[in-house]
């Protein structure tokens, strides 16, 4: 037997590890370099995790990987076109109407703030003088004006993302596993089992988390749409879509989601019965979410203590703002899985 010295093997492993890490860093850097590509990749990952169980299911039924991947995209395109034809006119009407009514809603919000300001000033003016109207009104007006002025830019950027996302997601589903296998083949032998297992655990956790979040958003949006529709409240669809999307922000999302409906109600005369019904609808959506989805789905997937979750979200908001709040929980759970795996493999060596 010709033995190669331990030092030579170690040196070869170190170079392999360095090459693997550099490849990984180059891939991440290339993706994050272009803003639209980065967003497209993020959304493609979400699409990948949502569609992967369907693709696997079709493959189990005997379809080739190619057809198992193509079929959901064809169905989604068809459903998308039909949905767009039904809902886009409603959504466009609601957006146009909302844009026309925005000055009225801002005016109503300002009146509400003045009211609040005068009441608050009468109580604590001597300690801390409040000027909500003077401070907030110009800011809100300029924010809304900017939003509608920069809408064409958003639309053109969104179109890039809109076409790039399914393209990337399709190839992730079709060839993603082979690509990951090729990247993993660069890992040196002594870390291979560890990295392969970590990749599997992270993938399973991220997939579960993304699917649970999507389910939450759909559930919250669906309940709110149904409630507002039964109540006969204006802009039911757009408010439900907004509440569903904003719900992905932990803790703050549910409150922000309810604000537009409350402002619209206030601007429309502030009917107290409607106000209470709105609170009931938004609270019911959150109660169902918190009672069913969070404890039975999200908590089991991320396997984090509630206190840890709160601290992680606060840390995320400090570091990256709203984006930090959204990605902090999955990011922390990935770090936790990686740290535990590395500890067990490298440090806790029982011998």
């Amino acid at each position, binding site marked *: 037997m010709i*033995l190669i010295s331990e030092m030579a093997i170690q040196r070869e492993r170190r170079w392999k590890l360095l090459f693997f890490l550099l490849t990984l860093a180059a891939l991440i850097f290339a993706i994050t370099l272009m803003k639209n590509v980065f967003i497209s990749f993020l959304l493609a990952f979400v699409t990948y995790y949502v569609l992967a169980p369907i693709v696997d299911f079709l493959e189990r039924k005997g379809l080739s990987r190619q057809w198992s991947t193509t079929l959901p995209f064809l169905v989604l395109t068809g459903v998308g076109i039909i949905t767009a034809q039904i809902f886009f006119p409603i959504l466009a009407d609601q957006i146009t109407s909302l844009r026309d009514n925005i000055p009225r809603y801002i005016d109503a919000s300002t009146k509400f703030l003045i009211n609040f300001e005068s009441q608050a000033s009468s109580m604590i003016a001597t300690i801390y003088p409040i000027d909500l109207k003077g401070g907030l009104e110009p800011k809100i007006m300029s924010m809304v004006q900017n939003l509608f002025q920069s809408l064409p830019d958003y639309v053109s950027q969104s179109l890039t993302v809109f076409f790039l996302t399914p393209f990337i997601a399709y190839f992730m589903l079709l060839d993603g596993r082979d690509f990951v296998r090729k990247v993993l083949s660069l890992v040196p032998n002594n870390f291979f089992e560890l990295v392969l297992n970590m990749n599997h655990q992270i993938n399973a956790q991220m997939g579960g988390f993304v699917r649970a979040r999507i389910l939450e958003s759909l559930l919250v949006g669906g309940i709110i749409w149904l409630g507002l529709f039964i109540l006969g409240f204006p802009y039911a669809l757009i408010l439900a879509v907004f509440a569903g999307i904003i719900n992905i922000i932990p803790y703050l999302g549910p409150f922000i989601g309810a604000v537009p409906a409350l402002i619209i109600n206030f601007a429309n005369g502030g009917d107290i019965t409607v106000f209470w019904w709105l609170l009931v609808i938004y609270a019911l959506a959150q109660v169902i979410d918190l009672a069913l989805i969070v404890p039975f789905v999200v908590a089991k997937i991320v396997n984090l203590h509630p206190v840890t979750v709160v601290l992680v979200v606060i840390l995320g908001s400090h570091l990256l703002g709203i984006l930090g709040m959204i990605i902090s929980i999955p990011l922390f759970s990935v770090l936790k899985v990686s740290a535990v795996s590395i500890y067990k493999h490298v440090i806790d060596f*029982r011998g």
Partner: protein
Amino acid sequence: MVNFIWDNLFRGKDGTRPLREQLRKNILFQDLNFQQLYLLENIVNVRHYRPGEAVFKQGEVGVGMYIILSGSVSITVEEIELNTTSSRSTHITHLKSGDFFGELALVENEGRRSATAFAHEESVLIGFFKPDLFEIIERNPSAGVKILLRLGEVLGTRLRQTTARISELKKESKQ
């Protein structure tokens, strides 16, 4: 010479054919049909080892099994002597092309390797790990069941052999 040319003409540069052949010959995968073998071939990991390089070490968390595609592997157990606290390495077995080892890790949850395996010469091993088994179960459950049944058979045989050996040793110690 004729065989040599024939082999190289049809084998292909990546050695795809011997990989499939080796998988088909293995007891765990012998029930798989052509399509399932093709899926497996694209899932397993082919790893290259230097002479003397460790495949895995005793005490590490095991994730899966290895089949020797070419070369050979030695299995040793490290024993710590309590009086001197120094370790002694005991050679257990020498495995050759077609043999497999480490299959217990496929069913254990974070089980530790009970021995050290190192390449005896330049060796190519096929790694089949827990995530690969899960992927097969997800994508082709019929193939997954076939592999798991064979895995159960292998582990059962090993258990029976171990029990018989323990009985023998007990008898010997009484005599």
